[in-house]
C-alpha cells in the first residue's frame, strides 16, 4: 500500500499565541490517511507558540525558526524559509486566512507547483474539493503523482483538533537568504475589541446596510455584549463606514462556521452567503419578506430590526 509522505503545516500566530486556524489545519491533515504531521513555527521569541503547537493532538513534531526577521508575518520573508524546509514533505498546508492566502501561493511558486486554495473536503490522498464562483460551484482538484501538494485549508470546514499532543520541539536551520525589501510598519487592530473572535465564536450576530449607521450598530453591540457573542457585518455595512473591514463576512471577507448566525438587515447576496453556509443555524431578521436570505435561513422573521433588537435584549438578556 502506498503511504503519503509527511505533511508540514505552517502555523499562524501573533508572536504570543497560536491562532486556532492551525488546529483546524491539523484536523484536515489527519483526515489525509497515513501521513506524519509536523508544524512549522516561524517567529521571534515564540516558544509559547511552539509549546501550544506541540500540545495539539495529532502533531508529531514542531519545528521552530526563531529569528528577528520573523517577528512580523511578511510573506516575502517567510516564503523562502518554508520552501526550503518543505524539502522533506509531500504536503505543505497553511490556513485560508489572510495570513495563509498571502504566504502559501508565494511558497507554491518557489516550489514550482500549483496551489489548492480553500481546500474544503478530502476525496482521496491526492484529490480534494474546493469552492469556486463564490461557493456556487464545488470543484474536485487532483494533483498528479510526483508533485508536492500545497494548499490553504478552508478553516470553516474543519473543527480544531483538541489538545492532548506531546510533540517534540526542535529548532530548524534555514540557509535561505531573506529579502530586506519589505518591512512591517504597524498593525491597527480592528473592531472586535473585547468581543469574541469572529472566526472562532460559537455565536455571531451580524448587521447589514439595514442597520443604517455606525451609531445604530451600537444597538447590535449592546445586545451582543450582553450575550457574549461576536459581531460581524456585510460588505455594504463595511463600505458605508458603519464598521471596520475586519468584520466583513463573505467571499472577500471572513468565512465562518458558528453554531448560530443571526443576520439583521442583510439581504443575502451570494457573496455574503458563501461566508456563512457552514453555520449550524442561520436566522434572518429582515423587513422585506422577499429578501433572498430567507431562502437559506433556517429561521426567518419578517420585521423591523429596530423593534426586534431591543425586544431580544429584554427576552434573552
Amino acid at each position, binding site marked *: 500500500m502506498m503511504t503519503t509522505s509527511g505533511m508540514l503545516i505552517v502555523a499562524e500566530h501573533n508572536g504570543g499565541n497560536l491562532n486556532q486556524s492551525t488546529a483546524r489545519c491539523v484536523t484536515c491533515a489527519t483526515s489525509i490517511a497515513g501521513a506524519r504531521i509536523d508544524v512549522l513555527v516561524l517567529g521571534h521569541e515564540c516558544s509559547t507558540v511552539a509549546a501550544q503547537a506541540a500540545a495539539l493532538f495529532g502533531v508529531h513534531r514542531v519545528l521552530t525558526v526563531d529569528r528577528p526577521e520573523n517577528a512580523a508575518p511578511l*510573506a*516575502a520573508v517567510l*516564503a523562502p524559509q518554508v520552501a526550503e524546509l518543505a524539502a522533506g514533505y509531500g504536503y505543505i498546508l497553511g490556513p485560508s486566512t*489572510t*495570513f495563509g*492566502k*498571502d504566504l502559501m*501561493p*508565494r511558497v*507554491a*511558486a518557489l516550489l*514550482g*507547483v*500549483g*496551489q489548492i*486554495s*480553500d481546500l474544503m473536503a478530502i476525496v482521496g490522498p491526492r484529490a480534494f474539493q474546493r*469552492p469556486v*464562483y*463564490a*461557493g456556487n*460551484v*464545488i*470543484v*474536485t*482538484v*487532483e*494533483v498528479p503523482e510526483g508533485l508536492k501538494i500545497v494548499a490553504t485549508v478552508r478553516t470553516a470546514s474543519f473543527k480544531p483538533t483538541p489538545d492532548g499532543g506531546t510533540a517534540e520541539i526542535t529548532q530548524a536551520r534555514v540557509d535561505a537568504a531573506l*529579502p530586506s*525589501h*519589505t*518591512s*512591517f*510598519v*504597524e*498593525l*491597527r*487592530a*480592528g473592531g472586535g475589541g473585547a468581543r469574541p473572535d469572529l472566526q472562532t465564536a460559537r455565536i455571531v450576530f451580524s448587521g447589514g446596510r439595514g442597520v443604517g449607521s455606525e451609531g445604530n450598530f451600537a444597538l447590535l453591540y449592546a445586545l451582543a455584549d450582553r*450575550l457574549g457573542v461576536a459581531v460581524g457585518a456585510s460588505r455594504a455595512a*463595511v*463600505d458605508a463606514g458603519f464598521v*471596520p*473591514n*475586519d468584520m466583513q463576512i463573505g*467571499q*472577500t471577507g471572513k468565512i465562518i462556521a458558528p453554531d*448560530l448566525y443571526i443576520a439583521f438587515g442583510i439581504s443575502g447576496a451570494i*457573496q455574503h452567503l458563501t461566508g456563512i*453556509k457552514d453555520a449550524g*443555524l442561520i*436566522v434572518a431578521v429582515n423587513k422585506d419578506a422577499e429578501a433572498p436570505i430567507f431562502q437559506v435561513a*433556517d*429561521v*426567518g*422573521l419578517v420585521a423591523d430590526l429596530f423593534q*426586534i433588537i431591543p425586544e*431580544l435584549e429584554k*427576552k*434573552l438578556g
Partner: protein
Amino acid sequence: MVCLKRVVDYNVRIRVKDDGSGVVTDGVKMSINPFDEIALEEALRIREAGQPVEVIAVSIGPDDCQQQLRTGLAMGADRAILLETDTEVEPLAAARALLKLVEREQPDLVLMGKQAIDDDNNQTGQMLAALWNRPQATFASRLEIADGRATVTREVDDGLEVISIELPAVVTADLRLNEPRYVKLPDIMKAKKKPLERQNLAALGTDMTPRLRLSKYEAPLPRQKGRMVANVDELVSALRDKGFFN
C-alpha cells in the same frame, strides 16, 4: 502594468454544465474581474496625481479578452497587451507569462485584483512576486508611493496592516482601495484607436504544464429550507429549542 482577467459577470447566476466539466459560459455576460477593475483605477489615479507613468493593461486568455482590454483602454489605460490562448491557464502559468512581460516592460509596479471571482484562487499576484523575487502587498486598501517605495495598508483578519515595500513590486487590490470610474461613450470611441498588441501565449515559451487537474464541477448541496416565525417570542423559543441562550 495592470492585469485584467475576463470573468463571468458577478451578477450572473452560475450554472454547472450537465456533464460536470465546467460552468456554462455560452451567451453569459462577461466582464473585467471587479478586483482588477479596482487595480486599474488605482493605476489611473497614480498617473492623474502627477506621476509620469504609462499604464499598460494586460490580459491572458482567448481572443474575446480584447473586449475587456478595450474597456480598460476606455477607462484610461495607455495601451494593452493580450497574451492569447484558448486553454485554461493556471495561476502559476499566468505568473510565469506575466514575468516574461515584466522583464520586457520593466514596470515600476504591477497591480492586479487580489482574486478573480471565477476561480477565487487568490494566487497569481503572490506567485508573480515570488518568481520575480520582488515584494508583494496583497489585499491593499490604501497605496501611497514616494521615493521609490510604496506604503500599503492591507486588509487582514486582525484589522489593517501597514507595510513598506521597495519598488518594483506587486500589489493586489482589495475592494475598498477605490471605486472604479464609469466609462463614457467618447472614451470608448477614443479607446478604439489605442494600441492593443496581441501575442500568442505559447510563443512566449514559458512552462504552461498544468499542475492540477480539475476533474469535476458540481453544485453545492443546498441547505434545507427553513421556517418563518411570526414574532420575537416564537424566535426566542426556536433558539431555545436548539439549545441557545438557555
